[in-house]
């Protein structure tokens, strides 16, 4: 097993630079998720690690070996593809044993290792079937099984769950998490789904336009985003971003110092519906989306715009109702003119205790 080190890694396709100087260290045994909108370069970065794309600039280290010019097959990595890439003319057993067979392992050894992997993934009864005879979830497990059989140091997953339906996705997510717990290999996982990233990762790498926006634990990214992009990308429903000047009144009444902030971010779950006398802002419900445990309200606040508010409980307000909102002073995110986070300690003011305490 081994960790990874990406140092000033870059990639160009012709004149287009798709990965721009990525620096990242991944610890041995860590589960790291690359997340970002489509076209941000996350899959390309994964394929550069795997060796399927060559590296234009910078260095890639796996363990203590520099891997830039090393063939894909000799990097000690295994990859699970979005399409699964199971060979349709081979049985599950043959698919899983393919890598060992091309490396001229003895048949007995191949059989033993395939059976080991099949046991780990509960594929024993499917070994003689063809991929077309399997369900989506089973194919996914076979693809993972094929990766396990080669005993790689590093597992790479390229959006492995995006072809599955919602229910199966949640199930397979848990299986992948359990697998990581059992194998303790280094895993690098690409997804565009921030929920998948939050639930699986030890650390999340948020990418945009081929650059790293922020690296941190799911909790860090949620509670201390470095910039507006990360703030809005992580967390669902999305964070409200408003001009600081529009919210100056309510925020100062809530005891939040907004000096130096140009924009302010408030998560829908940190805006509370309160009785009129406690309200810092007044708004009118435009749309109410019932979610079962509560409702997601689109509230029009005069002079601020539409804000998303998460209201708990069955009997939420209805469209056209007037509502009064309180702000959780410990969960106000402030950003400067460039969209970068301004933390209380940056301004030299010790306000909002919760944010400081979290450090």
């Amino acid at each position, binding site marked *: 097993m081994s960790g990874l080190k990406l140092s000033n890694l870059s990639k160009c396709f012709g004149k287009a630079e798709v990965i721009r100087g990525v620096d990242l260290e991944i610890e041995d045994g860590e589960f790291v998720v690359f997340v970002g909108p489509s076209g941000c370069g996350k899959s390309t970065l994964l394929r550069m690690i795997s060796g399927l794309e060559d590296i234009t600039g910078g260095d890639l280290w796996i363990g203590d070996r520099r891997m830039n010019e090393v063939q894909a*097959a000799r990097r000690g990595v295994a*990859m699970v593809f979005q399409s699964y890439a199971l*060979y349709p003319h081979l049985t599950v057993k043959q698919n899983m044993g393919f890598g060992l067979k091309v490396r001229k392992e003895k048949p007995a050894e191949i059989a033993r290792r395939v059976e080991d992997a099949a046991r780990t993934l509960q594929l024993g009864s499917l070994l003689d079937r063809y991929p077309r005879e399997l369900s989506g979830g089973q194919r996914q497990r076979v693809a993972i099984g094929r990766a396990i059989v080669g005993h790689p140091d590093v597992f790479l997953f390229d959006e492995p769950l995006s072809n599955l339906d919602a229910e199966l996705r949640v199930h397979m997510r848990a299986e992948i998490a359990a697998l990581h717990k059992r194998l303790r290999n280094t895993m690098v996982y690409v997804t565009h789904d921030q929920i998948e990233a939050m639930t699986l990762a030890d650390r999340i790498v948020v990418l945009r336009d081929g650059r790293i926006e922020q690296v941190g634990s799911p909790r860090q990214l949620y509670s201390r985003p470095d910039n507006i992009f990360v703030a809005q990308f992580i967390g669902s429903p999305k964070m409200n971003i408003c001009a600081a000047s529009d919210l100056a009144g309510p925020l100062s009444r809530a005891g939040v110092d907004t000096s130096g902030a140009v924009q302010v971010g408030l998560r829908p779950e940190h805006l509370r519906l309160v009785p009129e006398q406690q309200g810092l802002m007044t708004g009118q419900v435009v749309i109410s989306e019932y979610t079962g445990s509560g409702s997601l309200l689109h509230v029009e606040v005069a002079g601020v715009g539409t804000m998303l508010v998460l209201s708990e409980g069955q009997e939420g307000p209805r469209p056209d109702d007037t509502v009064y909102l309180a702000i959780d002073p410990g969960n106000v995110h402030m950003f400067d003119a460039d969209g970068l986070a301004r933390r209380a300690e940056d301004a030299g003011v010790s306000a909002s205790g919760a944010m400081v305490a979290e450090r």
Partner: protein
Amino acid sequence: MVALNDTEATARRNSVPWLTLRRREAIEGWLFVSPTLIGFLIFFLGPLIAVVFYSLSEWNLLSQRATYVGLDNYADALTANRDFWHVIRNSIFFAAGLVPLNMALALALAIALCRPGPGVVFFRTVFFAPVVTSAVAWAIVWRFLLQGEAGAVNQLLAHVGIDGPNWLREPNWAMVAVIVTRVIKMVGLNMILYIAALQAIPRDYEQAARLEGASGWQIFRMVTWPLLAPTTLIIMVITTIGSFKVFDHIYLMTGGGPENGTLVLAYYIYEQAFEFFDIGYASALAMIMFVIVLALTIVQLLLRQKGSA
């Protein structure tokens, strides 16, 4: 308002009770297919049936008199006529030479030209152009190139010290020359079929195999080739059938010679019918060829069913 069902509505609108929607559609359907159907009956099925009758009679085109002779023509071909077996042997030799050469070349070209790259479109065009070139022009040019000493092919060979044969005048070499020039003309078609099949194979397969340590040859042998099997089968049968039916190429390049060295079945039929005017015997030969091609087609269908099961 109560919705009427189709039948009622149509009947009422037309005020012709028996003309229900279903019947109306059936009549329209037959009208639409009738041009093709009538053409098929007159120009295809009709002659086919006529050939069966001709094959059972002795009919010389010049005498204009036909007499029923039963299976004599067939017996003549299969037992008495030494030319027939010579012709069959030539046809098999032609197919056995052409089919593997054509397919191997088509696959090699397809692998080289299946992915976008510099010059790929140009070379695809170069190799496909002969397919749509006039067979007459093709044959004339090659007859010119393959002339004895003055021909361009032999002059090129002379440069590397090889004294080339008089290609189209020596029985064994004539067959080789006909096969090779036919392959060069037709290989583009199979190349396109192989390119389509190769492009339909997801690149993930190749990449997954590469990550697992497979060499280029292993990927081809263990992944690409098995996935091409259905295409290979179809190409093989189509090319084999085509090679049994070859006529124009032989007619234009060698006329079946020298010494009947390139006399293949389709050309032999033509020769019997329109040079010796022996319509009965030629028809019997045509029926034999029909059976051979039909058998190959059935084999193809059976193999395809087996492949897709």
